[in-house]
């Protein structure tokens, strides 16, 4: 097993530089909460609310529900007719929908436990509207809605009934006004859906929202029973590659090892240059600072030292002179003069001390700014190192991103909202004509769709008039289609075989490469993005052609395999049916990192086609 792991890792490291894939710019945002709810009816007529990560079955039917109340708020806002915040209206809408539950809770009687539960429900339903009104008291207190609600609460004889009837009539008044203004405006609503595949995007028909032609029903089978043409090609590629590498195993391994060593050595030397450069700069900054400080003190301290020595000598001389004093007038004058000289020198030393103290004081006072400068210099140096290391790592990061993209089988580039345009067949619907729901049979949106393809929905409100024209995005979301539940695929792959017992005949090689097919079964789920979009675990059967005897007579091996990352990586155990040898295997799906197109040339093929 270990013998197989090594080449796999080497290949992953080397090949990472040759693979390229389209840049991915995912967009999964919705601009308006709950304007559109998508539900999925699967092939068993079971309904699922589609939520993050927005995965749907490729053969299902989607129900699109449009919350026309939210749409009204949005359209009123778009034309500048909104008098109350959307959030408040949504809260009122919700509390009115639940008013019966609230009134029932208020009137609940019985044991304490039952009443406590009812009290919790009452508080939970009433708190949002009261909290909003209370928190926004300063902005809303002059509004009709607030005044009427407050008035309703001034009468407690009618319980909460008066509050709800007031809220209801105020809400109706507001929405009627909105409807009137929105319908009188020339603003219109559009909804479109796009199928996005590796061939690009195309708008599909949504009943009630456009006059595009409806496609024929085409189901994408969950179970594959024949080998797809692309996998046949991949098998042939794997066969050529395996034969070529098996025939040149030593040079193949040497090439890979040299390539990896060169890469590591190259990175190592570049990192060393960056770090050494930064170290030199930082050391220079610190030395320069220390040298600057030192130079300011060296001169004065040296002078002071000299003066102190002189002073010491003079004092000794003076003391000796005093000892030898003859008390003549001249001696007294000389003594007085010497004493004066000593006094003067003492003053000079004092001044020098003051001067040094002042320099020291200035330097100490300037230390914060010096420290700040040093910090800035060091920060710049560290930033420079970071920038250079980031630049050095960027190509490798890009390769990792490409690898992740490939393992996620992200062959379809995400669409940006700005990149899609409504066709002229899309209806321009006034508010009153917007259907509240519609259904889309995904089997009709494109015959060539594949698992992993995307669909997008976009909704906008627009006005085209020359004055006051606008476009407001209301909804933009990506849905990815997969097979849900049990499904299978047939994949061609190149496998690294490692005999469990003994070595291969007539070769020193520790492993052998072989082309193979695997029938892999998986279970798709609507949840778990990593599981469904990247890990994609599966179990299946692997059939490989090999030549353990190295006698140019192909043998057949059959084994079980576990597959991951859209079958790009497989691990399994099998038996050579001709030699009865058991083997471990690692499989890689082709094309991987450009392998299939850069196979070693010139070696004759010995393995016969399988499955053609």
């Amino acid at each position, binding site marked *: 097993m270990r013998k197989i792991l090594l080449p796999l890792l080497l290949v992953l490291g080397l090949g990472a530089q040759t693979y390229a894939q389209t840049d991915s710019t995912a967009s999964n945002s919705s601009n308006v909460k709950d304007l559109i709810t998508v539900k999925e009816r699967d092939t068993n007529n079971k309904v699922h609310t589609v939520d993050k990560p927005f995965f749907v079955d490729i053969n299902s039917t989607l129900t699109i529900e449009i919350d026309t109340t939210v749409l009204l708020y949005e359209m009123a806002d778009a034309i500048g007719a909104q008098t109350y915040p959307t959030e408040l209206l949504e809260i009122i809408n919700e509390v009115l929908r639940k008013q019966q539950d609230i009134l029932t*809770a*208020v*009137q*609940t*009687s019985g044991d*304490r436990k039952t*009443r*406590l539960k*009812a*009290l*919790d429900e*009452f*508080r939970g339903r*009433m*708190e949002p509207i*009261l*909290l909003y*009104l*209370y928190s926004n*008291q300063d902005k809303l*207190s002059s509004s009709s809605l*607030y005044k009427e*609600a*407050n*008035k309703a*609460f*001034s*009468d*407690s*004889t009618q*319980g*909460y009934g008066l509050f709800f009837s007031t809220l209801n009539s105020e809400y109706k008044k507001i929405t009627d006004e909105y409807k009137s203004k929105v319908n009188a405006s020339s603003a219109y609503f559009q909804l479109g859906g796009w199928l996005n595949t590796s061939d690009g995007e195309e708008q599909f028909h949504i009943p009630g929202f456009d006059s595009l032609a409806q496609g024929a029903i085409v189901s994408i089978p969950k179970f594959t029973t024949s080998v797809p043409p692309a996998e046949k090609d991949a098998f042939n590629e794997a066969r050529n590659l395996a034969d070529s590498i098996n025939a040149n195993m030593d040079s193949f391994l040497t090439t890979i090892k040299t390539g990896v060593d060169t890469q590591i050595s190259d990175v190592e030397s570049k990192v060393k240059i960056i770090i050494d450069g930064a170290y030199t700069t930082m050391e220079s900054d610190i030395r320069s600072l220390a040298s600057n400080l030192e130079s300011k003190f060296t001169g004065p301290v040296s002078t002071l030292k000299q003066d102190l020595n002189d002073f010491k000598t003079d004092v000794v001389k003076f003391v000796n002179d005093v000892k030898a004093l003859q008390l003549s007038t001249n001696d007294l004058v000389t003594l007085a003069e010497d004493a004066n000289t000593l006094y003067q020198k003492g003053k000079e030393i004092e001044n020098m001390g003051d001067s040094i103290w002042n320099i020291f004081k200035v330097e100490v006072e300037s230390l914060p700014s010096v420290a700040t400068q040093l910090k800035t210099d060091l920060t710049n140096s560290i930033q420079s190192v970071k920038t250079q290391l980031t630049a050095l790592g960027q190509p490798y990061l890009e390769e990792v991103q490409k690898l992740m993209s490939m393992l996620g089988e992200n062959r379809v580039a995400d669409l940006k909202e700005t990149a899609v345009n409504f066709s002229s067949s899309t209806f321009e619907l006034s508010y009153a004509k917007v259907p509240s729901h519609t259904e889309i049979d995904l089997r009709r949106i494109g015959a060539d769709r594949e698992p992993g393809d995307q669909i997008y929905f976009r909704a906008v409100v627009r006005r085209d008039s020359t004055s006051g024209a606008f476009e407001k995005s209301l909804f933009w979301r990506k849905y990815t289609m997969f097979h849900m539940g049990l499904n299978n695929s047939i994949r061609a792959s190149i496998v690294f075989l490692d005999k469990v017992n003994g070595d291969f005949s007539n070769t020193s090689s520790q492993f052998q490469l072989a082309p193979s097919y695997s029938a892999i079964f998986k279970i798709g789920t609507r949840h778990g993005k990593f599981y469904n979009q990247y890990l994609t675990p599966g179990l299946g059967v692997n059939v490989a052609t090999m030549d353990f005897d190295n006698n140019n007579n192909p043998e057949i091996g059959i084994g079980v395999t576990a597959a991951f990352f859209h079958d790009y990586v497989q691990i399994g155990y099998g038996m050579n049916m001709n030699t009865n040898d058991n083997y471990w295997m690692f499989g890689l799906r082709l094309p991987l990192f450009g392998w299939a197109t850069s196979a070693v040339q010139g070696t004759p093929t010995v393995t016969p086609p399988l499955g053609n």
Partner: protein
Amino acid sequence: MPLNNTTILPSDSPEEAEQLFKSLIDEKDVVCVIVFGNDSVAQTAIKNADVRAALSPAGFKRRAVWMQSTGLWDNVKSYLKNGAVKVNSIDPANLIAIGVSLSDKVEMEMPTSKTPDFIAMEFAFVTSSKQ
């Protein structure tokens, strides 16, 4: 103004006020709103709280309490428990009212920047309507 659903704590007798407050707190399953002070804002607050205290959702009684003298606070605060609001953080001089839950926890405080209208007092009762 008639205050049918209000307990007024006597300002001139701290001991009596404390006993009255204690008996209120000891009474089971009552949601209280305590109004501080005796200025015009406090008078509006207690009048409105008294109206909203007439209701008893799910059979749980409400009570308005009027602490006209905020000096009483130090005598009575030990009977209350920490809820959403910490008892020791309460300064009656900066508040119009507080809401007290069924289990004597302070769940809401109404600062003097608010207007104690019916909506505000109903909010105080509703948000304190919990165990």
